[in-house]
């Protein structure tokens, strides 16, 4: 990453006559699209640029220099598990043998089907559940699929009255949004001052209209929900199912499994817990697992290992239906397989423990400067409620230095910002997730910078409020982006 802003768009590099591709000379003559009826043909020219190959390579390379990734530096974005993405995984998913048409007869893709089946089995063991589908494309897609499993379960029992999904008020935004897309009403349950679900608030919400409850454990504050056995029992007693949002699975690896906590359905974010790259926001992968007795509800098609050791695809009539064109974001699955094989049973639990060690270490080192609203051990992440009052963070002072200011100042020091203003329980939430692949040295640097920013906020708050200063561009006018919307080059 460098701090010189590039900022050009490819359309501005175009010159008539330049070409960036080469195709073989056509050996077939006598056929031309102009034969088609005019009404079926494109009328307008396109905006596509005309560029030679090096122009395109330099353009995107220059753009990449204005981008920050895990390979660039520390990326403590809470709830996103920005761990290192091993390079071996990239090499293996790009093997030409895996680039197959999705309708290839199964006899010709046995290797791919085995990758799929091995990953689903491994995830089932790690989660304490019976079976996984790898078809969902992302975490939110997994949530939607899991909620469809829950709905199908109730519908197939002939119970149409279960229209509600309970969601904690600290939940990821995707939880209520996925429930709404799946056609459920969303009911929020409150949190106690320590950030965990208020069981007394939950009890009156339970009844014959409850389809299930979504939770993540540890929750979005990084706190382990100790009452999970009680909550699971209450929800099960009223006939509902428990859904585990696997966004926060990383710290629990090998220590405590969602299936053993009482969850019936869950998704895993392979791009979080299992090291596949986030890719600027996608593609992800959101495998969904279910406990015994719910396997037939998983989406079609499913990969099946036959008694002779070969693999087949099959569709279950009682399945919830199809949720994807084909069989998963397959190259993401290959990456996760390479990670699972590499790490093995020895290191997967260690990943969780070291992520918890790192989070607690930062928390203890910074609580002198930042407001820690919840005491006690955290898991993989934790939340500060902004700067302490003595460092300019007093929320009642209109001139206080905000979490946004701290986040922007961090960029000047070469760190990505934590997640900010989430969860919504605190005014100035600053949510830090370091992951296990960060060293004590990196954490110490980060801690020193966070302390320095707190001191700057106290002694020279203007400097922090106008940050960043040393990034390729300065703070952006978000309001203008909404009021004068420009979504394409033509609008500029």
């Amino acid at each position, binding site marked *: 990453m460098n701090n010189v802003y590039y900022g050009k768009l490819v359309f501005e590099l175009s010159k008539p006559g330049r070409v960036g591709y080469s195709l073989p000379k056509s050996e077939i003559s006598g056929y031309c699209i102009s034969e088609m009826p005019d009404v079926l043909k494109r009328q307008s020219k396109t905006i596509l640029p005309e560029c030679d190959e090096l122009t395109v390579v330099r353009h995107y390379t220059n753009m990449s220099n204005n981008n920050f990734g895990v390979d660039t530096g520390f990326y403590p974005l809470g709830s996103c598990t920005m761990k290192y993405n091993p390079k071996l995984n990239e090499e293996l998913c790009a093997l030409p043998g895996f680039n197959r048409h999705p309708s290839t007869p199964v006899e010709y893709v046995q290797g791919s089907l085995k990758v799929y089946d091995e990953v689903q089995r491994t995830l089932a063991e790690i989660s304490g559940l019976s079976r996984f589908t790898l078809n969902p494309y992302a975490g939110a897609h997994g949530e939607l699929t899991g909620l469809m499993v829950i709905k199908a379960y109730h519908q197939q029992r002939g119970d149409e009255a279960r229209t509600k999904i309970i969601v904690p008020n600290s939940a990821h935004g995707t939880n209520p949004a996925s429930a709404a897309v799946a056609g459920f009403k969303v009911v929020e349950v409150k949190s106690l001052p320590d950030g965990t679900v208020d069981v007394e608030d939950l009890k009156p919400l339970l009844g014959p209209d409850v389809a299930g409850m979504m939770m993540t454990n540890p929750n979005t504050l990084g706190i382990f929900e100790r009452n999970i056995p009680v909550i699971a029992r209450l929800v099960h007693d009223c006939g509902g199912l428990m859904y585990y949002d696997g966004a926060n699975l990383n710290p629990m690896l090998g220590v405590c499994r969602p299936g053993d906590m009482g969850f019936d359905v869950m998704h895993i974010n392979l791009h979080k817990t299992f090291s596949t790259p986030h890719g600027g926001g996608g593609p992800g992968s959101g495998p969904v697992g279910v406990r015994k007795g719910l396997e037939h509800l998983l989406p079609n098609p499913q990969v099946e290992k036959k008694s002779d050791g070969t693999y087949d695809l099959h569709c279950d009539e009682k399945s919830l239906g199809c949720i994807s064109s084909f069989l998963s974001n397959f190259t993401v699955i290959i990456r996760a397989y390479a990670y699972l094989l590499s790490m093995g049973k020895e290191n997967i639990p260690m990943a969780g423990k*070291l992520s918890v060690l790192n989070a607690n270490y930062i928390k203890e080192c910074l609580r002198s400067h930042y407001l820690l609203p919840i005491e006690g051990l955290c898991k993989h992440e934790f939340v500060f409620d902004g700067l302490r009052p003595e460092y300019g963070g007093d929320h009642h002072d209109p001139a206080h230095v905000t979490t946004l200011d701290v986040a922007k100042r961090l960029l000047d020091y070469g760190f990505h910002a934590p997640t900010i203003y989430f969860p919504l329980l605190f005014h100035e939430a600053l949510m830090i997730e370091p992951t296990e692949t960060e060293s004590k040295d990196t954490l110490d640097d980060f801690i020193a910078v966070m302390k320095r920013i707190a001191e700057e906020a106290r002694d020279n708050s203007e400097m922090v409020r106008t940050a960043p200063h040393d990034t390729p561009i300065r703070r952006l006018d978000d309001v203008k982006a909404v009021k004068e919307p420009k979504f394409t080059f033509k609008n500029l």
Partner: protein
Amino acid sequence: MYKYFPHTTDDIQQMLDVIGVKSLDDLYAEVPEELKLKRELDIPSEKSEIEVRRIIGGLAAQNKPLVCFAGSGSYDHYTPSVVPFLASRSEFSTSYTPYQAEISQGTLQYIFEYQTMMADLTGMDLSNASMYDGSTATAEAMLMCVANAKKRNKVLISATCNPQVLRVVETYAHYHGVELVKVPAADGVMDKAVAQELIEKDDVAGLIVSQPNYYGIVEDFTGLADLCHAHKALFAVNSVASSLGVLRTPGEWGADIACGDAQSLGIPMNYGGPYIGYLCTKNELVRKMPGRLVGATTDAEGRRAFVLTMQAREQHIRREKATSNICTAQGFMCLFVASYLSLMGEKGLREVNEQSYAGAHYLHDALLKTGKFEDAFGPKPFLCEFTVRVKGDAAELRKALAEKGFLLGVETEGMPGCLTIAVTEMRSKEEIDSLISNI
């Protein structure tokens, strides 16, 4: 310690001391004992890089190659070497959704370019950057129709859509509570008379059609947009992205929404994913649009720069009232498409279509000449994909050809005895001739 963990034993001890606990296990003191796993995970032991390469390389080698003459939602187009090379730059691939715009201009710029290109190819005003694949993008288009109509809950979809798309849209409709009605096909294209009859009932939120359709036929949508608009329904067109370079665009057909899969724009087949769905619409509908949108604005020094915008539609702000649960920004695949189209330009995209057209028509005519095939629906305009009826056992023929190294299309769903076959610029005349000589 393991290669992905930087901690030394000393580091761990020092950190535990700061936290005030004795061991790593003590970090889990609050987890009830009865919930803890008291054994090792029952999965294989750690493996070295050499071993992992051997295992996964061996599985890749088990996949036997077939010369691809199949399409139906996944196309074997040429990917210039520059495309995966640029996408593999880890400043792009190891970043997250570009929340911190000041250090994410790379991602934001290529998404803005992608949005520009897709909006232009479809003839619409704007594009999002968040759809997983063509099927889910079409399901989101259906949800947009319903959200826009408010009091109407019925959406029509042409039965000539790819069945993979139909199945996913049906799933979303079933769970979301949308009444999805299939408009039947007549002679391989949507029966417009039936569509008209249904739309004239004034209870339809939208109509979704497909181009080229599942059978490869290029349909004529003349009059459909006006019909929809006269009855306050939205008109949505699902297209194969590559074909947009030469076929009448959804915008030119008068569509309100364009959706589909953009895999055909430089993304390898990858056994089904990852791909990227596209969803484009008109300015009026932007607030009904799901997913991430990048907009241009200025920074504190007045420089043009890019930022995620219109977030008030999205799940992290609106929760259950959001336009969708989408959280993904399909960045990595946007980069594939943007760099592909930057290299190909209009001329390259046209040439790809011309060569695919020529190859497909050459193969089609040669198959008919053998006397062993006939057009499934008589002569119809098609681009690079067509459906033929096999005089004999289609499944057996496909199987026999696979043994000779060819993937001869897919068995056409709902049309026993038929195959839907695709040809792209990747197929040489020699390969096509070799296929024909093996039939």
